[in-house]
């Protein structure tokens, strides 16, 4: 039991290229800032694009830096738990003003 965790972690996968991910994150950040000031895009579409880019970055951090990609599937399900709740809270309260 004791060294199980160390073994199953080390042996299972090749370490991802952390620097490559870093590059992608840096490029995405620059892109976000660039896109944010393009006045031609309508506000709602802009918001969606920016949030999508932010989520993309967040997912990269979660999957590769937090190693979620290499963890058991059950942990994925567990970590996904708050997400629908977050959406529900914000969407329903926003619906007040629609």
């Amino acid at each position, binding site marked *: *039991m*004791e*060294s*199980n*965790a*160390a073994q*199953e*972690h*080390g042996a299972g996968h090749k*370490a991802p290229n*952390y*620097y490559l*991910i*870093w590059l992608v*994150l*840096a490029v995405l*950040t*620059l892109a*976000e*800032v660039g896109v*944010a*000031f393009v006045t031609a895009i309508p506000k709602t579409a*802009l*918001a969606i694009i*920016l*949030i999508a*880019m*932010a*989520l993309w*970055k*967040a997912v990269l*951090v*979660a999957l*590769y*830096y*937090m190693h979620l990609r290499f*963890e*058991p599937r*059950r*942990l994925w399900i*567990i*970590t996904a*738990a*708050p*997400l629908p*709740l*977050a959406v529900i*809270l*914000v969407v329903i*309260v*926003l619906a*007040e*003003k629609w």
Partner: protein
Amino acid sequence: MSNAASATMETGTSGFGVYNMKLGMWIFLLSEVMFFTGLIGAYIILRFAGPDQFADPGVVLNVPLTAANTFLLICSSVTMVKAFAEIEQGNQAGLKRYLVLTAIIGMMFVGVQVYEYMQLAHEGFIPLADLYAAHGRHAAEGGAVVGGPLYASTFYTMTGFHGAHVSIGVACLWFTVFKAYRGGYTKNNYGGVEIMGLYWHFVDLVWIILFTIVYLI
């Protein structure tokens, strides 16, 4: 503490292969997701309901400075994951080096944020209803007041609590550094580093979302 080889990475007799400390940290982070959902959600809702209380990106807040700060925090995530990769290989020197780097960059992030707060407060961007006086970033002195105190309230609350989480993270990082220097982590016993990393990456992740929603939209 204990001298069992992998005391920090022990699991019990059930579960799906994620040791106690790691599982516990992930579960704790889920509650943090809900905490920031509450704060950021409130901002989204207040802004949707009363957009004239807020302002367009860059008008009041300093986007270039914060974009650079965002990049800095991402760099610290790289150094953190490198620290973890090093101790996975048993490389003590690498672990210490990258942990110290992470802590320093973390402190720089907080420093920049404090500077940013001071600038904003100087420009009248204050959360108090009767004292709010922020005007556009590049407007002439005495330009019209932009947005309202709610903008400042939500801004300082969200970024402030994030900054507090970063600061706590920095303190924990230094604790981890000291423990590393005392030889507290080995190739078979790096649970403390891994959960430190999870917390740190999470704080970075929240910032990624926060930066976009607060500064760019």
